[in-house]
């Protein structure tokens, strides 16, 4: 009797994490769900605000229209594939660039002692403090003076410096046990060797997490690309979406906006799913 009673209590307690997680998923995935549902209805239903919570029958129409509607009768659009390609280039360049230069500078700050070490760290760190909205005019001027308007370089390089990533790697490097460094030195490994053989493999989970975050950050950039690109063939998918949402003097094609949003989410989601196994090991891994 007693034993079975305990098991029952245990089971109830075991359910608590599931309940919390399910509630969490419901809350956090709800907007995604609304987008998915929205992409299966017609725009009038969504615009009126009484969007049902079950899928409608317009999915095929909406998606085929969102994908191919680059030749409307009265309006012109930039083809989706051009925008996706631009977004991809920008997101990859920003994510990889940020990771590369941040891991190097964090390595310098954490593993070396040299004059002005903390001054450099703080200089990098403070860049995080000045909102982009304020320095946008001078930054634009710098980019214009360098002749980088309307180019991938102008689109990405100014966004590559990263205080966040540098701080993350510094935090992580400080947790690497001293014994490892000692051992490496006794083995005669230099700083470069140590970086390649020990630090880089250890940073795998952090790099993967950061890549996900930064890829999405780059993918979702809005204000900067808007300012820095002029020609239609430099347009990114997020600008395409924003163009559709606009400021509302006209009727929005909500169905197409939602469908395009879902399409625009596919590459970031693919990155999440693909990178996830690097930093989120499943049950199988943990048995090791």
């Amino acid at each position, binding site marked *: 009797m007693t034993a079975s009673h305990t098991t029952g209590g245990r089971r109830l307690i075991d359910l608590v994490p599931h309940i919390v997680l399910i509630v969490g998923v419901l809350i956090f995935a709800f907007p995604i769900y609304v987008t998915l549902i929205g992409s299966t209805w017609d725009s009038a239903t969504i615009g009126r*605000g009484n969007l049902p919570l079950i899928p409608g029958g317009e999915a095929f129409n909406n998606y085929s229209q969102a994908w191919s509607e680059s030749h409307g009768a*009265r309006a012109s659009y930039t083809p989706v594939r051009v925008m996706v390609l631009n977004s991809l280039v920008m997101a990859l360049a920003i994510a990889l660039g940020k990771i590369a230069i941040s891991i190097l500078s964090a390595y310098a700050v954490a593993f070396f002692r040299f004059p002005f070490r903390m001054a450099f760290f703080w200089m990098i760190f403070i860049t995080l403090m000045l909102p982009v909205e304020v320095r*946008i005019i001078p930054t634009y001027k710098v980019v214009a003076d360098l002749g980088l308007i309307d180019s991938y370089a102008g689109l990405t390089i100014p966004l590559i410096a990263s205080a966040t990533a540098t701080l993350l790697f510094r935090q992580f490097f400080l947790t690497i046990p001293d014994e490892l460094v000692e051992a490496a030195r006794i083995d005669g490994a230099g700083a470069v060797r140590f970086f390649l053989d020990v630090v880089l493999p250890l940073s795998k989970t952090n790099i993967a997490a950061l890549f996900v975050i930064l890829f999405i950050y780059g993918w979702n950039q809005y204000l900067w690309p808007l*300012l820095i690109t002029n020609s239609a063939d430099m347009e990114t998918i997020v*600008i395409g979406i*924003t163009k559709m949402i*606009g*400021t509302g*003097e006209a*009727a929005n094609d909500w169905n197409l906006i939602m469908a395009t949003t879902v399409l625009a989410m596919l590459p970031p989601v693919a990155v999440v799913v693909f990178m996830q196994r690097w930093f989120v090991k499943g049950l199988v891994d943990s048995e090791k």
Partner: protein
Amino acid sequence: MLTRRTLGLATAALALAAGLSSGAALAQQKTVVEFWHGLPQPLGGQLEEVVKGFNASQDKVQVNPSFKGSYPETMQAAIAAFRAGNAPHIVQMFEVGTATMLAAGPAVKPVHQLMQETGATVDPKAYIPAVSGYYSSKDGKMMALPFNSSTNIMFYNKDAFQKAGLDPNKAPATWPELIGAAKALKAAGIACPFTTSWPTWAQFEQLGAIHDTPFASQANGFGGLNAELKINAPLYVKHVQTLVDMQKEGTFRYGGRDNKPDGLFPSGECAIIHASSGLRSRIAKEATFAWGAAPLPYWPDQIKGEPKNGIIGGAAFWVMTAPKRTPAEYKAVSEFFTYLAKPEIDAKWHMDTGYVPVTFKGFELAKAEGFYEKNPGADVPAKQLTRTPTTENTMGLRLGNLPEIRNIIQEELEKAFQGQPVQQSLDTAVQRGNVVLRNFERANKN
């Protein structure tokens, strides 16, 4: 058509494949005009289609349209570009940015000057005065080319009117009539009888114009930078008090700032809305009830004679300067403008988009095509704009940093709805707004 599009796509693809940043190779021999606009889809695409029409109509000029975000973002982009010596040839600027552009002096080339220099003509008299007045200097010279203009009108739910025992074919013409209708609607169980989009534009700026009452001194700012707000005058106090009282008794609902309340009408939630004439296409698409359009109501006891013309919203095209700009480039801009000023372009834009026609001939053309028979009520905005000759209170507003002033008024209005006395709210709005005007005056004094 087909070949040109295929060609264009192929060129773009080639340019991308070759790693080129911008595929304007085809346009090399033509004079290139950069044109920045702030219209989202589908309007932005329709505007770019107009540009395509121009590009195809001749072989000397290539206009490159480029979307730069919302109107304030477009303005910001143009300012940043000007400061970097890189301004576009043409920028689309919303009506409330007019004073800022006019104060920009050498950054802007006034349209009348452009036309004079290039020997082209765009006749200001061809335009509806309420439109051209907004974008003209005090002595009537055209500063910018009017293009997409709208105004504020009233939409009402005919089914709801029927339900409340009101005549669905007779919209309330005055405020007392509107209040009566709202009460009847509420009695009939309609939760939201009346709301307003664009609270400042509709309930302050239009109110002043219709009642020929100043919004600010110095002829609403046309007379000089030293204008002061006048929106704590009795007309405005009475009006806002009415709205606050109606909100309390449940016959009016405050639906938020700018155009946030737009959705309340097509959803059937609110039975009457004051909104941009541009809302029409959305209502036509989404509403599942019979509806009508009518001019904004007026206060019979606050008006001398008949209600005056309303004022416009929307945007105009401004010509910008840059250090290395050549006369040939200005010539190209003026050719584009001459094309845009044609009545058939104006009429087509009006009928395609729901913006008002900006020229008399464009209006006539739309009439001749039977557009208003097919779309009853679509001529309400144009009629409201042209019903009287403009006075200094109905020409528009020429106030620096008007977007900021609009926000201040909305903030104080919200405080009034939360219980702050109306007179106090409007006095504070005037006082805070005047600070904005003084700062603008100081920053732009030579």
